[in-house]
């Protein structure tokens, strides 16, 4: 079956199978080269293997929940959206969530995903207590920070290349409502945006939408969104009566959903202009439901199609704090000079994180997407160079086009990762189109 990631580039003819239980799964792992696939929301080729792509979505049972600690034990194929619909009404929310709820537990662990609270809470792994991993010898091992810690640390952020995550236990956070107190702050340019982030270290959530086509003095103008879970005291009487009930359908104020939307320099520019103005006029604090705040794009199903049949590519890097300002400035200059505006550009402050192979490090991360064509691929190569020159690195869950040399240059941990894959025999069994391309 033809498979791709969310960016619909590249597309690979893959054999697939959907195991229902451990025995099915063990059989597949014994059959040769495999990779696990969650819900296919990584952008590129991380969850593609032509020999055997194991679709984990039928291993999707929730196994246990501890009301005292908020610890949920679940099989790897459970969707985050289902966790929210089961547990938010009982007062629990994911401790860390990516910008879409259509991801699996396995995918979140393998990419060690970050949310808008990375600066305050770290990545998904902060809340991960243990993982059961099916290794290349066919054995399932429970690993945690104390038990088989090597396997635990490499599996987190290991992009499915240490084994198949079968189940895991992780903590949810208690919340008093399904509402977020959102504060929108416009920033005239990059420096102002960074200033706002640095001043907002106490906010639980923060993220900025950035206009990557603005130039000169307004290069990097942004709308910074801060957020807090609303407590009972924050709710008007109507919402207080049913604090977890939020409206099901919402309308977007921005015409994101234009079908056949022609994405070019002018339309993207016009979009960014409108978006910035609309946002600026709505500055201040408002109550927003969780779905709108965390998952605005999920309201438009299959939005990845607006980029046309060739698909699109994401570029996401992080640049260490000392070099963030210069690095981001250089990246934005290159983008606006190329006139290759990204429809969705997101800037975010990361907190410190120690890890074997996870993406985040203390600094700033920028995520952009481009339709796939020669010009944008060239631009992304430029952005790679700028990132490396400023000591930054790349997010594998978004990547579909990096070169092995570029990755190795950006991240000294790559050689250790390769070494681990060899010494544990993981390389003999687990591989993806991405790991082949990047020689992982």
């Amino acid at each position: 079956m033809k498979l791709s990631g969310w960016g619909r580039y590249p597309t690979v003819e893959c054999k697939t199978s959907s195991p229902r239980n451990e025995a099915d799964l063990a059989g597949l792992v014994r059959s040769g080269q495999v990779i696990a696939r969650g819900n296919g929301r990584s952008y590129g080729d991380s969850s593609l293997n032509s020999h055997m792509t194991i679709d984990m979505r039928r291993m999707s049972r929730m196994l246990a929940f501890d009301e005292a600690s908020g610890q949920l034990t679940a099989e790897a194929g459970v969707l985050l959206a289902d966790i929210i619909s089961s547990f938010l009404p009982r007062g629990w929310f994911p401790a860390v969530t990516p910008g879409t709820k259509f991801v699996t537990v396995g995918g979140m662990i393998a990419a060690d995903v970050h949310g808008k609270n990375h600066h305050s809470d770290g990545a998904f792994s902060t809340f991960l207590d243990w993982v059961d991993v099916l290794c290349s010898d066919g054995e399932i091992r429970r690993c945690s920070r104390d038990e088989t810690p090597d396997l635990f640390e490499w599996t987190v952020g290991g992009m499915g290349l240490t084994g198949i995550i079968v189940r895991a236990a992780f903590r949810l956070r208690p919340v008093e409502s399904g509402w977020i107190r959102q504060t929108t702050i416009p920033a005239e340019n990059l420096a102002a945006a960074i200033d706002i982030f640095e001043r907002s270290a106490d906010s639980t959530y923060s993220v900025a939408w950035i206009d990557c086509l603005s130039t000169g003095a307004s290069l990097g103008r942004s709308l910074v969104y801060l957020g807090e879970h609303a407590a009972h005291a924050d709710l008007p009487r109507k919402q207080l009566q049913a604090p977890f009930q939020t409206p099901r359908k919402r309308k977007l104020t921005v015409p994101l959903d234009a079908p056949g939307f022609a994405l070019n320099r002018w339309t993207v520019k016009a979009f960014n202009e409108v978006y910035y103005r609309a946002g600026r006029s709505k500055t201040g604090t408002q109550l927003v439901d969780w779905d709108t705040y965390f998952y605005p794009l999920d309201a438009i199903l299959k939005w990845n199609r607006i980029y046309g049949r060739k698909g699109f590519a994401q570029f996401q890097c992080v640049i260490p704090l000392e070099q963030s300002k210069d690095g981001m400035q250089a990246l934005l200059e290159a983008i606006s000079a190329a006139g290759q505006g990204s429809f969705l550009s997101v800037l975010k402050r990361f907190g410190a994180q120690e890890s074997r192979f996870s993406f985040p490090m203390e600094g700033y991360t920028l995520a952009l997407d481009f339709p796939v064509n020669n010009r944008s691929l060239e631009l992304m190569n430029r952005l790679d160079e700028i990132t490396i020159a400023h000591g930054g690195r790349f997010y594998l869950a978004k990547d579909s086009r990096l070169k092995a040399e570029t990755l190795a240059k950006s991240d000294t941990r790559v050689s250790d990762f390769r070494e681990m894959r060899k010494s544990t025999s993981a390389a003999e069994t687990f591989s993806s189109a991405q790991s082949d391309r990047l020689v992982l």
Partner: protein
Amino acid sequence: MTDTSRQKTVLVLGGRSDIGRAIAHSFAADGYAVALAARNAANLETDKSDISLRHNVPVSLHEFDVLDTGKMEAFIDSLGVLPDVVVSVVGLMGEQAENEKDTDLSARVMRSNYEGPALILGLFANRFEERGSGTLVGVSSVAGDRGRATNYIYGSAKAGFTAFLSGLRNRLARKGVHVVTVKPGFVRTQMTEGMKLPGPITADPEEVAQATVKAVRKGKNTVYTKPVWALIMLIITHIPEAIFKKMSI
């Protein structure tokens, strides 16, 4: 949280199948307590916790073999409460080519799709009739609408089951007991994994489940999933036999 004294219960026979699991989830989402019956029921523990965690409803497991007809009355007695809804998802397709050559195999297919499911639903029908309420659901198949060379052993058993359900419905219509016949077309399940299925007319188990719950709620008699199968089968059943017998579909 839920008022258990008035909570309805659904019993799913064949609770391990993808369609059975999905049906159990859909009823649980509607607030039903769930009883799952299957062979080796003990290894459905993970499904039990899954359903109860997601939907906050009680779930119980029950050992059940549809071919063990002698134990059926005892099985019903062992449930404790008589369910409000009983769904039989049990079925067995087998390989047509092998079934043709082996009477034991084909008898097994016939018994698993017709004899067993019909007998157990018949027993529940008697108890429901006595109580004056309840809904019986049989998952049959479009394969029962007309016998085809590629799967007529399975199809004929489903045809028998469909006819049984229709008769049962007729018998109980004025007794407060309703009977629903579910006829899936192609469904993406373990039974069909690896087969090349035509995407647009193939349903996910969840679609079958939602259609089933809706049919029970609305008191529908027969539902095709996807609905387009009603049209497809209307056409197929109207092809003259003289032509049909030479076709390969």
